[in-house]
């Protein structure tokens, strides 16, 4: 069920939804969302790579400042500082690599056994919303749990759909269920 989650940026999937908004604002046409959850290594990594406009070194420095925004467009708001605080609260870190005209990589690493590590949340909801609202963006989502992997390419799905848009509600709800069952499978029915 949707609608029951508390009102804050309290899980990993909401952070991902927020960070990807920066890639969309930067006019990316291809966004790679990579999640690697390795509890045996006490490590949870999120990486979001895009081919958007990119940032120069000064902009990269300033996006970690909660009071920074490019103002005219609010391109990057509070998302990065919130994710950074969340990762650092577990003893982890956040890194940004960006190049003007090439794209941006945001990487956050959490210590997953730390008591302050946020739960994964509903990645199927995050992906459904992203794909629905940005049907022209190629999303490449991969999610690893221990040694198992789930992968979804929105481009591949659009290809199978032909003239029907991937943003069609029935299709989006199907994608949501597809991801849900795929993640259940890699998590082996425990947690997720």
């Amino acid at each position, binding site marked *: 069920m949707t609608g029951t989650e508390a009102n804050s940026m309290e899980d990993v999937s909401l952070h991902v939804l927020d960070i990807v908004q920066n890639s969309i604002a930067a006019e990316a046409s291809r966004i790679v969302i990579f999640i690697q959850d390795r509890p045996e290594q006490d490590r949870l990594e999120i990486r979001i790579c895009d081919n958007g406009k990119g940032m120069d070194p000064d902009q990269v420095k300033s996006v970690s400042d909660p009071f920074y925004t490019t103002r005219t467009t609010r391109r990057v708001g509070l998302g990065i500082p919130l994710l950074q605080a969340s990762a650092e609260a577990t003893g982890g870190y956040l890194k940004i690599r960006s190049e003007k005209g090439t794209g941006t990589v945001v990487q956050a690493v959490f210590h997953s056994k730390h008591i302050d590590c946020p739960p994964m949340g509903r990645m199927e909801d995050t992906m459904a919303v992203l794909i*629905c609202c940005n049907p022209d963006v190629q999303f490449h989502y991969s999610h690893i749990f221990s040694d198992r992997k789930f992968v979804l390419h929105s481009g591949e799905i659009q290809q199978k759909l032909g003239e029907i848009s991937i*943003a069609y509600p029935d299709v989006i709800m199907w994608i949501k269920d*597809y991801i849900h069952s795929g993640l259940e499978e890699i998590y082996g029915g425990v947690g997720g």
Partner: protein
Amino acid sequence: MKSLEELEEVRQKALDSVKLRKSRAGTRIVVGMATCGIAAGARPVLLSFLDEIKKRNLGDVIVSQTGCMGTCRLEPMVEVYRPGEEKVTYVKMTADKVKRVVTEHIANGHPVIEYTIGSAE
């Protein structure tokens, strides 16, 4: 595990209903999806719209997103554009409110005034 093959079924169904309503101009629903919106619960609101639209088979509706609408304390905010009508802005939306908006406004053309920005201010 669900398989990608099932997608063909969804596609066929979609093709059939798209053919039925080719002539009608569509409604656009826009959800604020900046940090403020997401933190306030924009994701379940957007999914709830999709769920209700699917249930009622309203195939001529597009759900989309925008950035910060400038009034973060009223998030989650939703704008509804219906052809030939003025834009309606809903504030502090929840999954429950979505059900009423879809039934009364999206399907039947009567905005739910008490949820609009005009009533909140």
